[in-house]
């Protein structure tokens, strides 16, 4: 590393974001973490911290509830599954997009990138409504699919109000968060490496699998994290076009804060979700640490 960086540089660079996040994130969140140990208020919110007899009212009732009533764990696992599927599909769909943009000429690159993200500046709700139109039973897609199914003697399926609709929209909503990190990484790949490989006889697939993909792994991990983690907590999509079985942990958490007004339990569920997400992300980063790029590993990859 450079000789003079040292302590001052470290604090100058990491200080401001650290301070901001401590004030506007860590402290508020700690309030809610504390809330997970309190009792719910009778009419919503939280019961007073110090009850009538002057004692501190802290307990682990809500945690006990989570670990004893297994239905919550079941919903949680289903959400993990959906988030995983979403990430994989986003990767499959997003990689070619990011690749195309990264490999385009300077003139076109920015435009192509903007085109990827432009749809997401329109409102979320009407984009979902657009999908309801596309997937509706009377629209072309459903008619086509059910026509084919009918040919094989199968019952018609509903595309709307189903897990399929939920997944399609989950992928749709998270796609840019896969494309952007991937693009940022792919953009700096040196074409010379690929040209050299080709000169040495490597086919297109080999060039991709042996050179491009490994070098792009930091981007893949970043994109996967930025898709998987938010997708775990989503609730609006199942609410609007999910089927009767598509309730996810995000919906359950929302219910705790709204219908049930049980904030401590909502906090517990949120904490479990957050911890799980951070742990999974951390694990993935640790597993792929050789590829996540310290300066020395980059030199090794090039050698």
């Amino acid at each position: 590393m450079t000789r003079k960086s040292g302590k001052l540089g470290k604090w100058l660079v990491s200080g401001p974001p650290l301070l901001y996040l401590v004030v506007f994130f860590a402290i508020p969140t700690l309030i809610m973490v504390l809330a997970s140990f309190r009792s719910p208020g009778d009419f919503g919110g939280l019961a007073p911290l110090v009850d009538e007899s002057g004692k501190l009212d802290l307990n682990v009732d809500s945690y006990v509830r989570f670990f004893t009533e297994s239905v919550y764990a079941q919903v949680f696992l289903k959400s993990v599954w959906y988030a995983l599927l979403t990430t994989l599909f986003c990767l499959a769909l997003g990689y070619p997009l990011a690749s195309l943009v990264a490999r385009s000429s300077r003139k076109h690159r920015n435009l192509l990138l903007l085109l990827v993200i432009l749809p997401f500046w329109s409102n979320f709700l009407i984009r979902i409504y657009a999908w309801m139109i596309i997937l509706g039973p009377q629209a072309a897609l459903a008619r086509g699919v059910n026509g084919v199914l009918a040919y094989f003697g199968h019952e018609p399926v509903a595309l709307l109000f189903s897990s399929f609709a939920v997944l399609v929209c989950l992928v749709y909503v998270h796609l840019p968060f896969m494309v952007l990190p991937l693009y940022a990484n792919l953009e700096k790949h040196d074409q010379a490496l690929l040209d050299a490989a080709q000169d040495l006889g490597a086919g297109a697939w080999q060039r991709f699998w042996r050179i491009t993909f490994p070098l792009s792994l930091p981007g893949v991990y970043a994109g996967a994290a930025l898709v998987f983690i938010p997708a775990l907590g989503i609730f609006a999509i199942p609410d609007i076009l999910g089927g009767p079985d598509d309730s996810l942990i995000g919906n359950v958490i929302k219910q705790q804060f709204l219908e049930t007004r049980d904030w401590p339990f909502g906090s517990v569920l949120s904490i479990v979700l957050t911890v799980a997400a951070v742990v999974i992300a951390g694990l993935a980063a640790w597993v792929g640490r050789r590829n996540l790029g310290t300066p020395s590993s980059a030199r090794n990859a090039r050698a």
Partner: protein
Amino acid sequence: MHRKPIALWIAAGAGYAFLYIPLVIVILYSFNNSRLNAEWVGFTLEWYDKLFHNDDMLAAAGNSLMIALTASLVSTVLGTMAGVAMYRYKLRLLPLLVLTPIAIPEILMGVSLLIFFVLVNFTLGLVSVTLAHIAFCIGFVAIVVRARLAGMDESLTEAARDCGATPWDAFRYVTLPLIMPGVIAGALMAFTLSIDDFVITFFTAGAGTVTLPLQIYSMIKIAVTPEVNAVSSLLMLLTLALIIIASRLSPSLVGAPSEGP
């Protein structure tokens, strides 16, 4: 950069189609002669006309734009700093604080921020919403910038330092241009997140603060009329225009030296 295989064009084309078919419907239905966003009835400009007389909706759109621009600017600066710091130094707390807002359910973050603002007696309004947005956008920017930095050749920066450049100069003239695509990508993400946020905005908005998502979600039980399609389409075009203008004015900001190390 030159020959791109046909397979890539097809796959990417499918991706763009997936992105744009719903968008085409969104824009198309802003001309739909029906209150509902459900099926095509006929062509009309009625909704654009209604929109231009709908002060509430226009004010909400303006607020959203202002908040998104500010929040993405600040969070990009802070997020880039965080991304660089996480890459360069061995830190414990910052990576955790950066990653957790992405994981934490929005409703928890919204409620906790509201309680926090009330506790410190901070008046709720546009500022409280912006502060909240910055908090959850920093992480996204930081992760993208860090991914961009990963695998970057440190020898260039070292060479600059060896030639006598100060750390700030090395950063500004060597590192920053190299990570610029990551910074841009992060900024775009932050803007997207902010302009469409509902849950956190709902809890941190003041008694007279309306953003576009707040306005629209409150219509969800009655009907999200094509006026919403109209304002969305216009907002998209406006943002696109702003970016094109900005990139013309400062091409060095948006482009990056692509023929990299």
